[in-house]
């Protein structure tokens, strides 16, 4: 034994995170390629077709408008998949958590490590989008290099939210409600494909409450250089929702992890 004390909190969180990194990097080709393929397909689709009909959106070339939103949605989807299906399988089928909890790791460490991993995946996925759209000259290199940080925040927020959903789910099929009922509408009404301001006035507050609207606003600002004070509110929303969802996800999952 190297010391008489169990590892420190940062080390415990790191070790949970490390497990996920090791699993993810084991299949580098199948895990590492799709994040780059997705934006390529999107560029081809918009560039070859859609872009001819919609030239600009909100005073931006449409392809730029969409690209800055895509930085965030890729992070949302990857973290949501990880913390719903991924978590559920580790929890119920593979019993991975059961083993981990016999090591010096508490249920909270496990859940928070999971959220940090979701953030890391968000970061990586938006980074992949950034590389592709920058290489193809869609987005000029600017403060956009900071957009993956928004990807991280998106991953953390949707990781926490998805874990909270997972804590209620008893059957894996129920996740389809979350994906089609919550995430898909968000993709369309959070300012990714068209600006929230063009929604009917009654729906605009609804869009504002949608979690995805806020990282989209941040990413778009970083990609276009149009900064304003309202962005602070967006950032606060992300932090607040992450903390709220994270807190209840930890509390509820603890009950499922400890008998």
């Amino acid at each position: 034994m190297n010391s008489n004390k169990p590892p420190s909190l940062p080390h415990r969180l790191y070790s949970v995170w490390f497990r996920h990194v090791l699993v993810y990097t084991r299949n580098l080709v199948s895990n590492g390629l799709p994040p780059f393929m997705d934006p390529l397909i999107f560029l081809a689709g918009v560039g070859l077709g859609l872009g001819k009909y919609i030239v600009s959106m909100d005073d931006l070339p449409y392809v730029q408008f969409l690209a800055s939103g895509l930085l965030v949605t890729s992070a949302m989807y990857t973290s949501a998949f990880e913390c719903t299906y991924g978590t559920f399988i580790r929890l119920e089928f593979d019993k991975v958590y059961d083993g981990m909890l016999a090591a010096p790791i508490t249920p909270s460490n496990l859940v928070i490590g999971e959220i940090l991993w979701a953030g890391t995946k968000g970061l990586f996925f938006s980074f992949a989008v950034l590389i592709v759209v920058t290489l193809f000259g869609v987005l000029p290199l600017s403060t956009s290099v900071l957009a993956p940080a928004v990807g991280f925040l998106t991953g953390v927020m949707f990781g926490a939210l998805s874990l909270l959903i997972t804590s209620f789910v008893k059957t894996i099929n129920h996740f389809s409600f979350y994906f089609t009922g919550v995430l898909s509408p968000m993709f369309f009404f959070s300012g990714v494909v068209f600006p929230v301001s063009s929604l009917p006035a009654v729906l605009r507050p609804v869009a504002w409450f949608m979690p995805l609207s806020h990282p989209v606003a941040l990413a778009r600002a970083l990609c276009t250089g149009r900064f304003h004070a309202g962005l602070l509110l967006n950032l606060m929303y992300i932090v607040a929702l992450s903390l709220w969802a994270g807190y209840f996800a930890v509390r509820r999952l603890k009950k499922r992890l400890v008998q």
Partner: protein
Amino acid sequence: MSNPAIAIEHLHKSYGGLKAVEDLSFSVHPADCFGFLGPNGAGKSTLMRILYGTAEREAHPETRIRVFGFDPLQDELSIKFLSGVVPQENNLDEELNVTQNLVVYSKFYGMKRGEAEKRIDELLAFFELSDKRKSKIQELSGGMKRRLTIARALLHTPRLLILDEPTTGLDPQVRHLIWRKLRELKKEGLTVLITTHYMDEAYQLCDRILIMDKGRKLTEGSPQSLLEQNIERYVLEIMDPGAARAMASAEAPEGIRMEKTQEDRLVFYGNEAHLLRRLAKDLQHGEYHLRESNLEDLFLKFTGRELNELQ
């Protein structure tokens, strides 16, 4: 006598209305192997889980738990750090290969890289898995998975090893290998808690055993003393249905206890082998079996032969 490694007093645990553990007390000395025997649903696994904090005990004023001086309610991490756990079901990480499974756990225990690599090599050799280091978990046989799970629990050189049915479903070769390894570890001072359904396993490994049923302790002691105190030395089993029926109607001779186990089957218990042999003198070879009593006889005496609703 030194401080016990584990001391449990008046432990209670229920799931809904079901009492999983009821007023259980026992203590385990350092470097002892302590065995839990009991039918399925007796509360053995729950008890183990409570010790390392993946099950919460019921709040009860008299309850006191100390594992190396730590209470799982306050010092879950310290206990987990000093213990290695082999659960009933292998919960190896199927997304990682053999070595990676161990590497990940070395991180959980905060081991340094060089130290971990050395220890992993040692353990893979110890459990005869060295040529499987790059294998996927799905490619391993049941016995290999079990050995790997035990190796994983020993990675950080724990002071306590918790084994929940370590050899269930394994072939005799692997079981004997595991027993041999466990005896070696015990000699090095490792304290072992084990649950098992194999009475020979308990007899081979355990210094003390505790028989429990429906969450309650029925008896506790060394295997030899429990046998001596609770059951006759010899057992005569009558396997032939005709002979059993005939003998069942007659009274058992002085000093012999008769028990009807199933339809058409009879068991006699006695301390004098020659009395039992005399009882079987008219029977053909194959119609009866005369042997020394063992833990299984004791176990059945305490827990009964009938199934309960949890089994």
